[in-house]
C-alpha cells in the first residue's frame, strides 16, 4: 500500500449531487482495490491562477488515501474520460504505509483540524462550499 494525495478540480457549474456522485465514484475505485480514505477535504469553489479549459474557477477536492498503484491508474483514467473533471494531480506521499500508520495519520489530521478550528482559521481552508467568493 502506498499513500497518495489527489487534488481534482470539477467544473463550477455542477450541482451538489453531481459533485457527490463524482466523489463517491472516485472513493469507490480506491476502496475496491482494498484502499482506505484517510481524509477527504472539499475546498469548494476557488478561482484559478490561470484558465483551465476556458473556466476561471472550479471546485477543488483534496483526497488523501492509501491504496495500490492500480487504483490510481484506474482513477486517473476515469478522470480523463469524465468531462466534468477539469484537472487532477496525484502526489505520492509515502512508498509504504501500514494499517497502524493509516490510523495514526487519521488521528493526526483530526487533531490538527481541531487545533485549527479553535485557533485562527487558516487562509486557504475554504471549508464552505457555497458562495465562497472571498477571492477577487
Amino acid at each position, binding site marked *: 500500500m502506498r499513500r497518495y494525495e489527489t*487534488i481534482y*478540480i470539477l467544473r463550477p457549474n455542477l450541482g451538489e449531487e453531481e459533485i457527490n456522485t463524482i466523489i463517491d465514484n472516485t472513493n469507490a475505485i480506491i476502496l475496491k482495490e482494498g484502499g482506505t480514505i484517510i481524509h477527504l477535504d472539499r475546498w469548494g469553489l476557488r*478561482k*484559478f*491562477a*490561470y484558465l*483551465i479549459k476556458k473556466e476561471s474557477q472550479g471546485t477543488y477536492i*483534496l483526497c488523501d488515501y492509501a491504496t495500490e498503484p492500480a487504483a490510481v491508474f484506474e482513477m486517473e483514467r476515469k478522470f480523463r474520460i469524465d468531462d466534468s473533471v477539469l*484537472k487532477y*494531480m496525484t*502526489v505520492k506521499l509515502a512508498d509504504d504505509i501500514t494499517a497502524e500508520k493509516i490510523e495514526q495519520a487519521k488521528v493526526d489530521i483530526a487533531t490538527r483540524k481541531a487545533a485549527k478550528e479553535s485557533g485562527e482559521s*487558516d*487562509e*486557504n481552508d475554504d471549508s464552505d462550499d457555497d458562495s465562497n467568493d472571498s*477571492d*477577487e
Partner: protein
Amino acid sequence: MPPIKRVFARKKVCRFCTTDQETIINYKDLKTIRYFISERGKIMPRRISGTCATHQRQLCEAIKKARQIALLPYTGSIPR
C-alpha cells in the same frame, strides 16, 4: 594592506531553518509560499530570499506543484 571592504548587507537566514526543522514545505500552504515568489509569480532567487539550498529545492518543487493545480500562476500576477 588593502582597505577593509564595508559590507552593508545583513546576513540572511533561511526562514525554514530557523523555525521548524521537520516542516516539509507543502504546496497547498500558499501563505508561506507567497513570501517566496515575486509579484509576477516568479520564484525568488536564493540570493534575495536567503533560503538554504535544501529548502530552496523543496520550495521550488512546492511552487511547481502549486502551479500545476492552478493555485499559483505560471506567469502573470498572483490571484488575490
